[in-house]
């Protein structure tokens, strides 16, 4: 059974009401933010595939040797390999799982799933979005019209069909997903957690509203005055947020819209490293890039300043047209 499905309403409210939702400074380090994630919890990851992946926090959780976490994300890329291989989690709920189409099927994912060492729980893309949305709205389910008739639905045990009392149509109900913690990387956030996102927002906003805790990593921390100058650009309100961490290049080697594109050479390097001997490759990668560096800046340095600058040049170019 999947963990953390359809939290009952009174318990969800109690948990929410017990959070300190006042306007207060929440700035801390990656290591301190790890304190908001406990072993065994369900963690949702913002972004999608190679875009706005909250890699800095995933990196910190792996270094903190968390255990028995389960994860969900719209589409999972290499962070899924690293979650399984590092041992912090053995259950990932998503609609698609591999580094990215151009790199083929993840050999690490295959190793863990085909040997039943970990679970890749497959839901349709939209159903995951609607599960977060139900969680965000404080209702126990969302109605939808896809997934019926498929084996994706057939192998899930927490779906319900109903006949619509208004139209008589067959409707699928998917249960709310209220993650214990959501990890979301943004371009700008103030010290209180008011986050402004540019470009594609993926499922991040519903995810933040649904979660029982939210950790925001941000390219830069801006003042609350800046937020209040453009309040209609704020996408995540401060009272949903528990921790704010400034993490420049916090998605590397993935992209952050308008700031940097993916670091393709590094992604090619990882794909090559894990192609033939997936487990040896991913373990070597973890040793070199996750456990060895002293801090996030050292991790970035290992990836290489040249690659960062190139990715940043390409990233900003979206505003050149």
């Amino acid at each position, binding site marked *: 059974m999947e963990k953390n499905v359809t939290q009952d309403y009174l318990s969800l409210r109690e948990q929410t009401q017990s959070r300190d939702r006042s306007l207060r400074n929440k700035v801390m380090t990656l290591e301190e933010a790890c304190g908001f994630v406990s072993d065994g919890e369900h963690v949702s990851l913002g972004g999608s595939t190679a875009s706005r992946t909250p890699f800095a926090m995933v990196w910190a959780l792996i270094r903190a040797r968390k255990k028995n976490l389960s994860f969900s994300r719209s589409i999972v890329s290499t962070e899924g390999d690293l979650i399984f291989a590092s041992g912090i989690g053995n259950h990932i709920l998503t609609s698609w799982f591999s580094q990215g189409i151009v790199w083929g099927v993840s050999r690490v994912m295959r190793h863990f799933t085909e040997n039943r060492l970990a679970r*890749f729980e497959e839901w349709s893309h*939209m159903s995951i979005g609607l599960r977060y949305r139900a969680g965000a709205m404080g209702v126990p389910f969302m109605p939808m*019209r896809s997934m019926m*008739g498929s084996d994706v639905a057939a192998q899930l045990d927490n779906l319900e069909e109903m006949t619509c009392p208004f139209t008589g149509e067959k409707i699928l109900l998917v249960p709310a997903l209220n993650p214990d913690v959501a990890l979301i990387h943004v371009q700008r956030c103030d010290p209180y957690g008011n986050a402004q996102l540019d470009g594609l927002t993926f499922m991040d906003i519903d995810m933040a509203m649904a979660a029982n805790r939210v950790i925001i990593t941000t390219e830069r921390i801006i003042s609350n005055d800046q937020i209040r100058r453009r309040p209609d650009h704020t996408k995540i309100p401060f009272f949903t947020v528990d921790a704010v961490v400034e993490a420049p290049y916090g998605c590397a080697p993935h992209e952050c819209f308008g700031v940097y594109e*993916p670091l393709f050479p590094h992604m090619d390097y990882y794909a090559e490293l894990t192609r033939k001997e997936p487990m040896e490759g991913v373990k070597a990668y973890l040793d070199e890039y996750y456990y060895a560096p002293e801090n996030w800046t050292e991790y970035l340095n290992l990836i290489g300043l040249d690659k960062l600058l190139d990715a940043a040049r390409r990233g900003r170019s979206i505003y050149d047209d």
Partner: protein
Amino acid sequence: MTIETKDFTASELLCVMSARALEDGQVVFAGVGIPLLAATLAQRLHAPGVTILFEGGTIGPHVVPGQLPPTTNEQRCTRKANMLVSITEVLLLLQRGYVDVGFMGGAQIDQYGNLNSSFIGSADDPSVRLPGTGGGNDISSLTRMIVAMPQEKRRFVENVDFITSPGYVRGGTSRRDSGLIAGGMYRVVTDLAILGFDEETGRMRVEALHPGVTPEQAQENTGFELIIDSSVGTTEPPTEEELAALRHLDPDKVYTA
């Protein structure tokens, strides 16, 4: 390749034939690769009013020749878009009915147009765990589908191991009965033929063969019995104009090698 080699590749043929399947003014939910390229090609040829949607949340981008986006979730696919929305919102456009065509590639398809991108072998003990549905299940559940894929026996199987993206499910009225009352598989465009589906049984049917392809060749490259009318027609070969436009869009042959 079973088709007589002309002055174009099988992928180019697939692209041109797929582009022709789109009509002007349509809203097309496109996957990366051939679908994206073919939709863009259609815009340059007979269907300038086609609007492209990507599952990352992009509405109506301008695809720049030679800079085809490698994915549907990164900023490259948002160039000069009309609007960006969340993943959930862009998929809900399918459910609401704003989309005319879902346009995808496929790894494995069966006689009823069901697609599998989840498991080779049984789901409980697969020989290969594939990456999964992504947007495929929602797209094929909620709109009319065009799938572009090479026609090979191992890809065209009688029944897929796992229905990731439903076509006509088990045939007959089974798709509708399962609750999928709209959409459905419309065309499978291959390097050999244009395939459709019988309205009653939901089984795959040859609509037209590409130039030089015989009914026997189409059947040989299919793992189940195709419905082939003896009077089945032949498609027009790619024109010079089509090929020129295609090569202008993908000069490095990223998707058309």
